[in-house]
């Protein structure tokens, strides 16, 4: 662990502002993410963390500023195009396909990668069959990795919350993303589930070398697993650096604990 090599800047966020009518959700935010690192965005509730993630993911179009991914700058992008570029995400409030089994949910993550002709797939002949098997193997690998073997055929809606969160992660992993955006992966979990999730996140980073951008408002968890941390408060960036630097930052302390007058 932790022998992974942090690479060049893969994602560069420059001067992003986001307004909803008169509400300023984000003001002039800049930060970058390096390849293979675990980058956390933290901040109290309503700080603009999810808005930031949604900008990167193409759900929101920032009012100002630019986002550069692997040297390509984009302003208007929808989620689908972002997905094609190799960015996957999980959701704060689970957005799984509840009626579908765990396997099918994760298989949907392979959708962009399946190339065979529709007719061949339906008939299950030759190359289509082989391709399906290949993707299925990959998905089984993810299922093993996330330790949800026992539930592979269960409709996701029937699983407990912690496991649903894992399936959400599994679906994102199935896309073999270069960057993985995790929106509060530990929200609403008990201590044990949180520990499991931390372990999975570290393992993903170590095993697949995926760059991870993660949102969390629980500072304790984040400090232990991230390489660098951005702190937001009221839509502004108030801190950026290694966990230790951030921990000792006056602004961050006052944002979290309140200022002493």
């Amino acid at each position, binding site marked *: 662990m932790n022998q992974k090599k942090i690479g060049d800047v893969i994602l560069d966020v420059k001067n992003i502002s986001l307004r909803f009518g008169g509400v300023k959700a984000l003001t002039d935010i800049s930060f970058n993410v390096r390849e293979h690192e675990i980058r956390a965005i933290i901040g109290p509730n309503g700080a603009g963390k999810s808005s930031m993630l949604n900008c990167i*993911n193409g*759900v929101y179009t920032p009012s100002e500023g630019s986002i550069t991914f692997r040297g390509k700058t984009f302003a208007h992008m*929808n*989620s*689908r195009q972002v*997905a*094609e570029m190799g960015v*996957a*995400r999980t*959701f704060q409030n689970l*957005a*799984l*396909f*509840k*009626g*579908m089994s765990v396997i*099918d*949910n994760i*298989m*949907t*993550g*392979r*959708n*962009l990668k*399946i190339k*065979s002709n*529709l007719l061949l*797939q*339906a008939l*299950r002949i030759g190359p289509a069959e082989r391709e399906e098997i290949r993707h299925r193997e990959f998905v089984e690998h993810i299922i093993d990795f996330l330790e949800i073997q026992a539930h592979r055929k269960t*409709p996701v*809606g*029937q699983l407990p*919350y912690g496991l649903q969160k894992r399936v959400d992660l599994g*679906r*994102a992993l199935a*896309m073999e993303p270069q960057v993985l955006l995790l929106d509060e992966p530990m929200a609403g979990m008990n201590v044990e589930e949180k520990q499991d999730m931390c372990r999975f996140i570290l393992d993903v980073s170590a095993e697949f070398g995926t760059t991870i951008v993660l949102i969390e408002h629980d500072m304790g968890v984040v400090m232990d697993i991230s390489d660098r941390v951005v702190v937001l408060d009221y839509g502004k960036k108030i801190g950026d650096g290694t966990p230790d630097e951030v921990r000792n930052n006056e602004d961050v302390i006052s944002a979290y604990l309140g200022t002493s007058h």
Partner: protein
Amino acid sequence: MAFFLETLIGGLMAGMLYSLVALGFVLIYKASGVFNFAQGAMVLFAALAMARFAEWIPKWTGIDNPIVANLAAFVIAGAIMFVVAWVIERLVLRHLVNQEGATLLMATLGITYFMEGLGQTLFGSDIYKIDVGMPKDPIFMLESMFQGGILVNKEDVIAAAIAAALVALLSVFFQKTSTGRALRAVADDHQAAQSIGIPLNRIWVIVWCVAGVVALVAGMIWGSKLGVQFSLTTVALRALPVVILGGLTSVPGAIIGGLIIGVGEKLSEVYLGPYVGGGIEIWFAYVLALVFLLFRPQGLFGEKIIDRV
């Protein structure tokens, strides 16, 4: 006994047509979470297109071969349904991504009236015949068991075979292909589907197109039995209880629901009708649907809804 069997078979045949219309509902609901009220209008629209082109093609081209004319009319009507699907996606659905179900339902209600009007403006509002050359002669079955045998319409048997083939095709499409999986994913959650790179717009065109073709097949079979006319749209209202019975998300549910209602209607009319003065056929389906809503709201095969509180 022979009479009972004949009534039963008659009911099954009527039910199969309900099933076909219901199938259109289920497809669109499954794949986009939209309860498409316009399915009936689509049946009428497709049937009108087919009937009229089958009539116009020999006139325009001078080809006097009914098979060629019908085939060409079917292909053209199919193409028209594709255009309809594309236009609906472009003008309506695209702007309503992530909206409430009720909003989408109202939108399809609007589409219904628009398509009914447009269909009649383009293709006329008389009664038209679709004659795809299905044999009309009856066959007698089980003559050794019953005196005189059981009378079955050959046309009905062929129609049933077509419907069965269509259903088999669709099940394979939904269960075995990646596009089918994408369709089911879109039905569950638009946002999540987009985030994993499923092209929402293309998926919607595909599914409305498939529903359009199902509407075309349903319209063709109804049309060749009873003629194409405005009252075809009311068939769609008959399919509503079928969907409730079978479950909105289940393809087999639509089929079995349709059959149950078809058979139930006929049997209750024949055997209970005399005691209550008849007319059961008209309301039977709706009462059955109400009972289902009380005791099994997700239908026979629908996905059980478990909500976290």
